[in-house]
């Protein structure tokens, strides 16, 4: 019991929670934008892989860290555009298209990596983002290490939460995206383009998802591994329901998951002799399923989610 309290009070635990949450924040915001516009994007898992690979490879090829971030976002946007074309004007099943994109994007990433580096035994490393050392703030007790020794990408994620909230709630664009996810006819009758709004939202959301992947290779680690995304995209799909499609709650959900994950690593070292390690590895997922079951009962799904809309058919 004392151990648990010690963990919860430690700076490193909270710093780790935020670090683990960062890719999820990007992912859940991306999924949120897509679903608010009425499109489920199950390509998220593959788009994470593409973002991780492209970001890393751009840096490895000498593009610089921010060049890598841009490359990842562009690659994510490209796969988002593919999903958008298939699901919006063509109106194909969003589930099938999304899963197809995940398989396709993952394979293309692995293929590109293997083709570029045919015979390396250990993955080449890059110089990743360093923790921002902000004078004074970083030296604050507790808050300093937790908040002010994170990398620039974590800060970008937090900034994105505020930006997505502002756009969704305070701009005409955000209102139109919410409307197109509820009743596309309402947008069409007012002379706005349903296709344009939906495609735009999917492309932007997918770019954000790819940044979640890029964080893994450019901030959390310094190289690209197979299987490194490891279901983070799927977690985001669950978190967006938990968050009721709200950016603030999305941040909270991602942090909660990050905290569970950080906790299980620490409990594993403390109590590993008593309980098999796999139980701890499972814990965050089981807890997120439980949280989802509770939250999803009252979930207010965007009404037009999964329903294709075709121009001229009223």
């Amino acid at each position, binding site marked *: 019991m004392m151990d648990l309290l010690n963990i919860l009070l430690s700076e490193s635990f909270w710093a780790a929670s935020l670090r683990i949450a960062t890719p999820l924040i990007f992912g859940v915001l991306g999924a949120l934008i897509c679903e608010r516009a009425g499109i489920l994007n199950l390509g998220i898992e593959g788009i994470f892989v593409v973002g991780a690979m492209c970001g890393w490879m751009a840096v490895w090829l000498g593009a610089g860290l921010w060049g890598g971030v841009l490359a990842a976002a562009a690659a994510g946007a490209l796969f988002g555009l593919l999903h958008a074309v298939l699901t919006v004007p063509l109106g194909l099943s969003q589930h099938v298209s999304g899963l197809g994109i995940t398989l396709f994007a993952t394979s293309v990433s692995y293929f590109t990596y293997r083709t570029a580096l045919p015979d390396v035994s250990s993955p080449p490393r890059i110089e990743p983002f360093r923790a921002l050392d902000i004078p004074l703030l970083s030296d604050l007790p507790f808050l300093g290490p937790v908040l002010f020794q994170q990398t620039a990408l974590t800060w970008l994620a937090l900034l994105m939460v505020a930006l997505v909230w502002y756009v969704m709630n305070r701009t*005409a664009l955000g209102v*139109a995206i919410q409307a*197109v996810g509820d*009743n596309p006819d*309402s*947008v069409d*009758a*007012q*002379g706005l383009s349903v296709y344009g709004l939906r495609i735009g939202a999917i492309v932007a959301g997918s770019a954000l998802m790819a940044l979640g992947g890029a964080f893994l290779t450019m901030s959390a680690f310094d190289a690209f591994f197979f299987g490194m995304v490891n279901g983070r995209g799927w977690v985001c799909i669950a978190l967006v329901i938990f968050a009721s499609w709200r950016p603030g709650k999305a941040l909270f959900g991602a942090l909660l998951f990050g905290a569970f994950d950080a906790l299980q690593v620490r409990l594993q070292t403390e109590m590993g002799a008593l309980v098999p390690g796999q139980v701890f590895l499972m814990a965050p997922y089981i807890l997120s399923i439980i949280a989802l079951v509770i939250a999803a009962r009252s979930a*207010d799904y965007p009404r037009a989610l999964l329903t294709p809309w075709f121009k001229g058919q009223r």
Partner: protein
Amino acid sequence: MAEGSAFAPTLFPMTNSTVLRLNGLSKRFGPVVANDDVSLTLAKGEVLALLGENGAGKTTLMNMLFGHYLPDAGSVEVADENGVLQSLPLGHPQAALAAGVGMVHQHFALAENINALDNITLGSEPLLALRRNRQAARSKIEGIIERSGLKAPLNTPVGRLSVGERQRVEILKALYRDARILVLDEPTAVLTPQEADTLFENIKAMTREGLSVIFISHKLREVLAFSDRIAVLRHGRKVGEMATADADEKAIARMMVGADTPKVARTEMAPGGPVLNLTEVSVAGRSKRDTLKGVDLTVRAHEILGIAGISGNGQSALANVISGLAAPSAGHVQVDGIEVAKPSPAAMVKAGIGRIPEDRHHEGIVGAMSVAENMVIERLDDPEVQSRGLLRRDAIRDNAERLTQAYDVRGPGVAASSRLLSGGNIQKLILARVFERAPRLILANQPTRGLDMGAAAEVGRRLLEARERGAGVVLISEDLDEILGLADRIMVIRDGNLVEAGSHDREKIGLMMAGEPA
């Protein structure tokens, strides 16, 4: 001057006050002619009522004006700010909006997760602006509300507004876009009579400021009370036009229905024993349309019982009880004198009830299944249809071939998906399925809605045939003429109560439907 006098009916609109001109609009959907060479004009400040039966082409005509459909022939001219008629590019809702044409569809186009203010301003602000000028929008809307009386809460998500409020938001949407011509598609279909009256008073207030209105309706009462001029469509053609002041209810009704309605021959017949008894049956529904308040009803063999009433007064609840879809919360249901203990659709089919449902596309057929399969879908346990759990495909096909012949179901063949059939042929498929089982009682709910004259007459003929054979029929219809023509006895449903009409007196039944003492 024009604005002050616009309230008075404008019988012969002067050319300089004409705000809209439709010239010879035609539209076909496959083999169906929806509109054939329809021309109309609308004067400034005028309220034009577009009357016609279901399927007469009213909505299609307005959808062409608003750019949802591209006409096959014809043109549209709309007056600009200076009153000069300009030709309107067809097929572009954007162009219609910009020219000052606003349309309120029967099915609202509102996003329920955002508030009325956002729904109204949607699309009229630059999407990429970082800030919105909500205050300016709000004061403009409040100004419109004040002038028109169309009150609606602006800050509540539309999902929480009443139907009447949503309708007002729809109209505010058009007025906010500076619509000079407003098209309302059956605006009162979902409103209470009081809400409807208020709506028309609000519209009148707006016409005094120069708004011109076309409203689609098939309710004669509101048309006579609130329009300046009436145009009647039948089978896609304009068959009449007159000033409301000169209009005569009978003449309009004849124009709508057509004098050439084939009369169904009907022989007098002595009724037999009761086939369906409802005693004190109540249904506790969530809305008025699915509520029944202790109704008694008896249908005898060789008898057609007509249920007249304004839509949404409990017809759905009554139909659901008779077809076993809803269990009564109180009362008894007897078929052929035997109490139905546990009502379910299967139990009712077994007891000998044949159902012609109101929504034939969704409740009458399984669209993805073939015509042949739909023909036997209510008797899958019949040994003629299956043996040891396997379908007898040859027998099913032969059955379908025979029935499509006998009932004249036309379409791409018995193996094709039933959704490919037209509405009239879907109804014939359902008739074939129901009548072949020689049911004791037939529930026909709005059996001719949306059908053309020929198909409607066929339905009437088949119902009379079943009556001669000895079946009882419950005919629920909003079309009083249909009931007067077919029923042996008439009851009026209103507010969940059923009352014997006692005669075939149209006026008396009409008053009972409206809830006024006869």
